[in-house]
């Protein structure tokens, strides 16, 4: 190839290369817009009881001790969710002068949380039922046990049982 022809070819190649580069630059064009978002999650504690009203009737007597047999009900389910740290679930009754014994057991506690073996409701301050609830949701079965001595006679008592998720 003659030198003049070589120069022409080189210039042409350079032009094509420049054109390709310009095309690439053109294709890379873009436009942007930004938005500022403010995100937050507040501490929340949710608790719910499924099972409705419970009716416990002590109407059987032990043949060996001649004492009334306890009445039980395990048809309630307690559910909770907390995104806080070191929460606990307490239980309390509004009946401060109960004659008959009412005990509560939290069974089959799922996920986090450890349950007390048994809580006796006697109208005092709220009792710890489930401890060490942190950043979790969970559930358990609530078992109520009502008991009475023969010496306590007969009667009817009402309890409004309140479950509270609170600081541990």
């Amino acid at each position: 190839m003659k030198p003049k022809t070589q120069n022409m070819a080189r210039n042409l190649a350079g032009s094509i290369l420049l054109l390709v580069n310009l095309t690439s630059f053109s294709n890379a064009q873009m436009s942007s817009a930004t938005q500022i978002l403010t995100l937050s999650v507040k501490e929340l504690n949710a608790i719910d009881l499924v099972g409705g009203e419970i009716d416990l009737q002590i109407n059987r007597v032990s043949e060996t001790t001649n004492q009334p047999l306890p009445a039980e009900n395990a048809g309630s389910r307690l559910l909770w969710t907390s995104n806080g740290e070191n929460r606990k679930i307490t239980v309390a009754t509004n009946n401060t002068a109960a004659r008959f014994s009412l005990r509560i057991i939290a069974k089959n506690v799922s996920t986090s949380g450890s349950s007390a073996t048994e809580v006796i409701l006697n109208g005092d301050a709220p009792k710890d039922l489930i401890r060490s609830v942190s950043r979790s949701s969970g559930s358990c079965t609530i078992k109520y046990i009502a008991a009475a001595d023969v010496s306590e006679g007969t009667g009817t008592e009402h309890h409004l049982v309140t479950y509270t998720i609170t600081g541990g």
Partner: protein
Amino acid sequence: MKKSIFGITLLAACVLMINGAYAQASANQTVNLSVNTVYKIATSGNPGALTVTTGTAGTDALTSVSDASTTYSITQNFGPTVKITANLDAVLQSGYTLQLNLASSKGTSAGTVDISNTSTGSGVSVVTGIGMGADAGKSITYTFSALASAGTLTSTTKTVTLTLTN
């Protein structure tokens, strides 16, 4: 006499026509027109604070919150392959989810897209196949959700970038 008047009139008319012809002049200009590629995207402002405040007992996923108070507008003349991508300035912590939905009438919205794990340089497409023209005042919907197991989140600022590109 009449012939003389007619002759004079004819002569005058010819003179006027010749003068008129010599008065004409023209000039040419070459006008080059070009339209460069235009990409423009803008938003109407910032959305309100997204704060998770409630949940359902027994469920780890807390109740999500949404904001659809802002809009975006675009103009582009590049072609039918233009898209909008979205990214955060930095990924969200695990257990928190930020979703984005852009409405579109010039393109195909990807629907509700999770942008929690995006960051600068790793955006996800939220609208594709945008045709040439303008699309104004289209809604932007953010949805923020969290797991109880992720704990609380103190007020955190995140920057969302919407990019119109091909």
